[in-house]
């Protein structure tokens, strides 16, 4: 390991060769302001175009100022981070950025979470000396994401997320000079592009340029409508992150408080998406075993590996990018949609309600879910199975609006029957969780034996792409896991080329899985937050009395009273779906 010695603000520092000035300074407690820079180890996310020029510092012997995020330390370097020259340059650059940014902080969706706002505040900018024309771009309102590019500062983080991490390739810089902006090709709307609505662009945007489509008002309208019975479902990853919005330590589990808050908000029934996750395991696990058995019996037609299908971003991704492989993923609907389907059939019937009188709201860590519930195949006679999907952040907003002091709310329990869940469903919220849950059930179904050790730690972790072999009593099951669509693409290419040795693959569009979803409280590039949320999820699993989906008594009851058995005709009708070829074709007039 080569070390280099340098001096930053008169402090000597020794760092590894290849360390940037920004990192070296940080290691000795010098926080150089930066804006476009964002790096998340383990997530394959590194955005340092050196474009904003906020982190400039003075390096002795160098003609101009150096961007600390891009400049590597060299032996004997003498660096000053706050000379008059540097401070003047940094302030001027920030003033320039502000001069081309709408001063709408008071009403901006990102206010309080905006990194540009923080930067201006930290530098104490009170006046903008350089004013002039501001750039204007057309707005873009998709079902999940709002692009308000007047607020774009060209940090290019969204571009890195979309191209390098997710390999979706929708967002890139277009136009030149003052008109440059990040946009889909030809500045088309997201809705017309191959965007998966994974929301990772929103998760990293430092300003209010990219935000979620806010549906809180629709929820309020439903809640105050006396003719409607409003049912809410909450995804597993929400409870591991919601607390952050109220100043709690990342990784604090707030399941009980969340339920309490939802009830106070006026929802008639507070249910759990986890219940539907257990249902998903019943269907998907059965499908896996069915395909596997047919394969073992020499059926050449059967497609293996089976790919999970609970992530709507991932579903849209393969519909656009790999439509020739639409028969590979499981046909099971996502937990959100299974819940909607069951709520508006089984539960509605049970409660003697018409499905139209039931409003199903989902609280999701995800933005793609907003899009998913608008897909036509997920509605009956124009009535969607899930009416509105809001993000973790939007729920926090609703709670604040209702004047609830979240921290002191008592713990409460979900309603029944759609509120009971197992540890297996909780771990759906993190990468590796779905497949671990499936293994717990599939093992017992396949071998007929009791599974003693339910923790498959070999399936856990944060590496972008993992593999493990699980012993099903002699049958070696090869399992692949990918989170982040770029990693998914690699596994998919392998499957496409016939080189894949996997029997089952779990894919989540977002790095980290749902805990890192586009609708979660902003992490501002801090990967530790995601890791803490992940730990919280596994903790919740551990604490559950039942940890295998098929042991959920209410799931058993549902099959007994209504569905019959997994993959029955009714299950097929209500819990399975089909996919569409969305490959973009050149349109010839």
């Amino acid at each position, binding site marked *: 390991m080569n070390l280099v010695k340098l001096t930053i603000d008169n402090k000597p520092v020794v760092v590894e060769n290849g360390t940037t000035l920004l990192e070296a300074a940080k290691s000795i407690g010098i926080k150089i302001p930066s804006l476009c820079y964002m790096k998340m180890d383990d997530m394959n996310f590194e955005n340092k*175009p*050196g*474009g*904003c*020029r*906020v982190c*400039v510092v003075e390096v002795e012997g160098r003609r*101009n*100022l150096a*961007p600390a995020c*891009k*400049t*590597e330390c060299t032996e004997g370097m003498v660096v000053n981070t706050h000379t008059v*020259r540097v401070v*003047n*340059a940094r302030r*001027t*650059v920030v003033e*320039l*950025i502000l*001069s*081309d940014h709408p001063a709408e902080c008071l009403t901006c969706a990102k206010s309080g979470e905006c990194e540009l706002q923080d930067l201006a505040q930290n530098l104490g900018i009170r006046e903008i*000396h*350089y*004013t*002039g*024309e501001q750039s204007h771009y057309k707005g873009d309102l998709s079902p999940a994401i709002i692009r308000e590019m007047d607020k774009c*500062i*060209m940090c290019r983080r969204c571009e890195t997320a979309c191209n390098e991490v997710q390999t979706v390739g929708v967002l*890139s*810089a277009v*136009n*030149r*000079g*003052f*008109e*440059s902006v990040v946009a889909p090709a030809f500045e088309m709307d997201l809705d017309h592009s191959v965007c998966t609505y994974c929301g990772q662009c929103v998760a990293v945007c430092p300003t209010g340029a990219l935000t979620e489509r806010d549906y809180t008002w629709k929820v309020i309208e439903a809640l105050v409508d006396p003719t409607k019975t409003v049912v809410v479902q909450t995804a597993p990853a929400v409870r591991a992150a919601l607390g952050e919005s109220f100043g709690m330590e990342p990784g604090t589990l707030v399941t009980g408080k969340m339920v309490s808050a939802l009830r106070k908000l006026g929802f008639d029934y507070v249910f759990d998406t986890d219940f539907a996750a257990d249902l998903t395991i019943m269907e998907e696990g059965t499908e896996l075993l069915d395909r596997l058995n047919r394969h073992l019996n020499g059926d050449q037609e059967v497609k293996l590996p089976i790919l999970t299908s609970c992530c709507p971003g991932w579903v849209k991704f393969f519909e656009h990018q790999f439509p020739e492989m639409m028969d590979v993923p499981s046909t099971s609907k996502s937990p959100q949609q299974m819940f909607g389907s069951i709520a508006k059939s089984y539960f509605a019937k049970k409660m003697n309600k018409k499905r139209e009188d039931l409003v199903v709201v989902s609280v999701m860590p995800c933005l793609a879910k907003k899009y998913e519930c608008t897909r036509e195949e997920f509605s009956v006679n124009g009535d969607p199975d899930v009416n509105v999907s809001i993000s973790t952040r939007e729920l926090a907003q609703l709670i604040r609006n209702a004047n609830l002091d979240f921290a002191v709310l008592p713990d409460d329990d979900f309603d029944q029957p759609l509120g009971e869940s197992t540890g297996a469903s909780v771990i759906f919220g993190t990468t590796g969780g779905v497949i671990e849950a499936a293994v717990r059930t599939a093992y017992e179904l396949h071998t007929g034996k009791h599974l003693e050790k339910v923790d498959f730690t070999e399936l856990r972790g944060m590496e972008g792409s993992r593999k493990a072999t699980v012993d099903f009593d002699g049958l070696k099951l090869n399992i692949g896991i990918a989170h982040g669509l770029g990693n998914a693409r690699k596994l998919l290419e392998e499957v496409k080329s016939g080189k894949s040795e996997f029997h089952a693959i779990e894919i989540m569009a977002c790095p980290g899985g749902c805990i890192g979803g586009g609708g979660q409280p902003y992490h501002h590039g801090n990967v530790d937050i995601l890791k803490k949320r992940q730990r919280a999820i596994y903790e919740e699993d551990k604490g559950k009395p039942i940890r295998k989906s098929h042991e959920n008594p209410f799931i058993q009851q549902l099959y007994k009273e209504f569905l019959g058995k997994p993959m029955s005709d009714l299950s097929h009708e209500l819990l399975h779906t089909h996919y569409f070829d969305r490959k973009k074709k050149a349109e010839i007039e």
Partner: protein
Amino acid sequence: MARFKNHILVCGGTGCRASESEAIAVNLKRSIDENNLENDVQVVRTGCFGFCEKGPVVKMVPDNTFYVHVTPDDAEDLVLEHLIKGRKVERLLYVDPETKEHVSDSKHMDFYKKQIRIALRNCGFINPENIDEYIARDGYSALGTILDEMTPEEAIKVVKDSGLRGRGGGGFPTGLKWEITLKSESEQKYVVCNADEGDPGAFMDRSILEGDPHSVLEAMAICGYCIGADAGLIYIRAEYPLAIKRLKIAIEQARDYGLFGKDIFGSGFNFDVEIRYGAGAFVCGEETALIHSMEGLRGEPTVKPPFPSVSGYKGKPTNVNNVETFANIPAIFLKGADWFRKIGTEKSPGTKVFALAGKVNNVGLIEVPMGTTLREVIFDIGGGIKGGKKFKAVQTGGPSGGCLTVNHLDLPIDYDSLIASGSMMGSGGMIVMDEDDCMVSMAKFYLDFTVEESCGKCSPCRIGNKRLYELLEKITLGKGDEGDLTRLRNLANVIKDTALCGLGQTSPNPVLSTMDNFPEEYEAHVKESKCPAGQCRALMQYVIHPKLCTGCTLCARVCPVDAISGDKKMPHFIDTSICIKCGACMDKCKFGAISIQ
């Protein structure tokens, strides 16, 4: 091969072709055939002669008679008079502006006297579409010798010893660049020729490619051998069709002759080139942006290091040199590093090609030894200022160079002296301005260009240059105040200090240099709302002198906005609140009664 007694060289550069030089060549050929001279006289379409002001140019060889401003109708006379009767066609000869005498040989013209042509050595002499003509002037013999007798290290030493510095503007030592690329270990390396000449008004590289493409190709092969690359890429802007056509012909011919391809000269060295087209973005002249553009990515620069010589095209070590730099290489090997070092200055050996333009008598392409003074270039070669006006400033280095003044006229031109005086070499644009040019408007004009051409990646360039432009506009509209001058200077300095690439780091140069050299002009704009050069429209007022006005009413009748009133035979009056300053009244007035204040 046929041997001709006489050659008629017709300039086939883009400028002369635009003035029908192709028709001259066609007519010459017809006349030659009609007079049965086809076995004795050959018409050759050459590259640019450089003396564009006097184009189209036709040169008779062997007697070196240099005809200027030739038209297609003159072709017959040139054949009948010059070739058959042996009499010079006097009306087409160059007239010395001082002595008013005819000068027939270009070497006696002031325009050429002080020039030394290395990069342009074959331009205007050979047919660029015929490889034999290049070979006849020792073409490809440098490559042959190197492949035969030298190791890459030895060859690089020659380039290092010559002291050649990058002619694209940066002035980085070429030999050192080659050495770094040689030392970067990789199975695949690339030689890239930067032919993305984007400075407005500059056409050095285009002329070299149009007039002598093989010199660049030969140099690229030499470079390939030296650094260990077997692939070359020429990045050329698509709006250079003639240069592209001639390059393509040259590449084909070099392949046919076995000078490109596998096992060149039996040495085991393989080399070939490909052409890549640029869409005309100025920033793509910056080497990292150029490489990204060739890779099919957005043409925007990335922070260096890593330098292309370590990680360039497709992440492989890539040596990027500009056209003019390459054009010097074969000559250096043919005549030796010592010969080259003796030309020019100690720190900047050799010559530099400039595109001389603006308010100067002899507009054109010139090549002078480094160290030549601005005075020699503008007054001796350029023939002084047009219309006898006073010299005011010269902008060197293209849109991001600085404006130098009369105080700099005796400055010997080289990389370092230009930077020290607030300008730069750039790729070699040189625009001369006279007393009628407003320096604030001039700075605004250049900023307009850089604002347009910024890639938008870094905030100082994307937003800062826009704000600089807006401040300049405010000042030229007479709406500026002294605070604006402070802001202008601070902003210009910050952009220079913080921008990501060469474009942004130099774009404030026109502002800073004009503020330094013409402070009184800025002050006149903001303090007195006056434009001393009378160029800023918003600050001008047309007035009628009552004593000179005869009341003829002509001005009132031509005024398109009815701003002029007055009774017949009585002095008229311009309502400045209506006047749009079109100048029609002043043009029409027969009594000189209307003037600008």
